[in-house]
């Protein structure tokens, strides 16, 4: 059973990322905060007897379900059907080579100038913007897998899809991000 401190530490460690993830999806800070709060409360009420190691996966599942519920309610309210799986981008990478992004990324490592530092906040903003513009399923797979650091099986469990789908979504997301950032002259 997770103690108060363990639960508090866990929520503290995850709350900002959770807010950002939901905000990317719903594009409404107030709604994102409500969803995160509901998810935290649901975790605390229903799963307080679970060991601390189980909390991250449980929380991500609750958060994903709460986000989906929000979209369902929105759909009913607006009578506006929005198919999230239609967000898939075309896979037309052309002659884009992902290795070039990594080379740019490696060459910039440790060579940040003062000017770079000044514009760092803007770069972070652009990266965040590109992540938020990813198709829904790609963004979810990418953030769960690489930001929340769940493994492929856990990500598939949260997303309710196969591990193969997770790998595909992640790969497409990374390619799309690398391409978009390279086009803007940004190495992540």
């Amino acid at each position, binding site marked *: 059973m997770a103690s*108060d401190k363990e*639960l*508090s530490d866990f*929520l*503290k460690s995850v*709350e*900002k*990322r959770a*807010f*950002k993830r939901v905000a990317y999806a719903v594009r409404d*800070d107030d709604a994102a*905060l409500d969803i*995160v*709060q509901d998810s*935290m*409360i649901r*975790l*605390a*009420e229903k799963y*307080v*007897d679970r060991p601390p190691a189980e909390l991250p996966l449980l929380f991500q599942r609750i958060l994903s379900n709460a986000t989906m519920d929000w979209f369902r309610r929105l759909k009913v309210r607006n009578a506006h059907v929005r198919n999230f799986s239609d967000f898939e981008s075309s896979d037309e990478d052309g002659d884009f080579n*992902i*290795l070039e*992004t*990594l080379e740019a*990324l490696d060459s910039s490592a440790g060579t940040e100038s003062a000017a770079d530092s000044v514009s760092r*906040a803007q*770069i*972070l*903003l652009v*990266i*965040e913007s590109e*992540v938020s513009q990813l198709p829904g399923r790609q963004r979810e797979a*990418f*953030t769960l*897998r*690489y*930001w929340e650091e769940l493994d492929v099986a856990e990500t598939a469990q949260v997303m309710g899809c196969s591990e193969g789908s997770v790998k595909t979504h*992640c*790969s497409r*997301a*990374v*390619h799309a*991000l*690398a391409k978009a*950032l390279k086009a803007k002259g940004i190495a*992540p």
Partner: protein
Amino acid sequence: MKNSKATIYKSGQDALEARIAYRIAARLNERAETVDTDISERLRFAREKALEKAQAARNAEAAHVISGGNVAAALLGGGNGWWVKLGSALPLVALAAGLMVIQHLHTQAQISVAAEIDAELLADDLPPAAYSDEGFVEFLKTPRD
């Protein structure tokens, strides 16, 4: 040979993607740390509310366990201390004592009724026919204490 090359290429590609992905995730982390104070405060409030709910859930669970324990203790005649145990045993003792008194009184009543019958028989005039009764003769032959 072709397959092994493809496998090596695929694993290299996966590693490359993972490196880029983790770098982007690190930038997202940096960005997430710079959320507005207002949002940070609302997240803190949400966390505290969740912790209150967790505490309430724990208390409810504990109360449930305790009340269950009390019911079990009451059923088993247990309690908190010797006086409570004595108090709960008192009705049983009283019941047993009452039953013993009733049994004793009942026996006494039976004896007194039998004694009255015997006394009346002995005090009454003996009918002559009694001497021809084998049972009465036997009674007379029986030595008295």
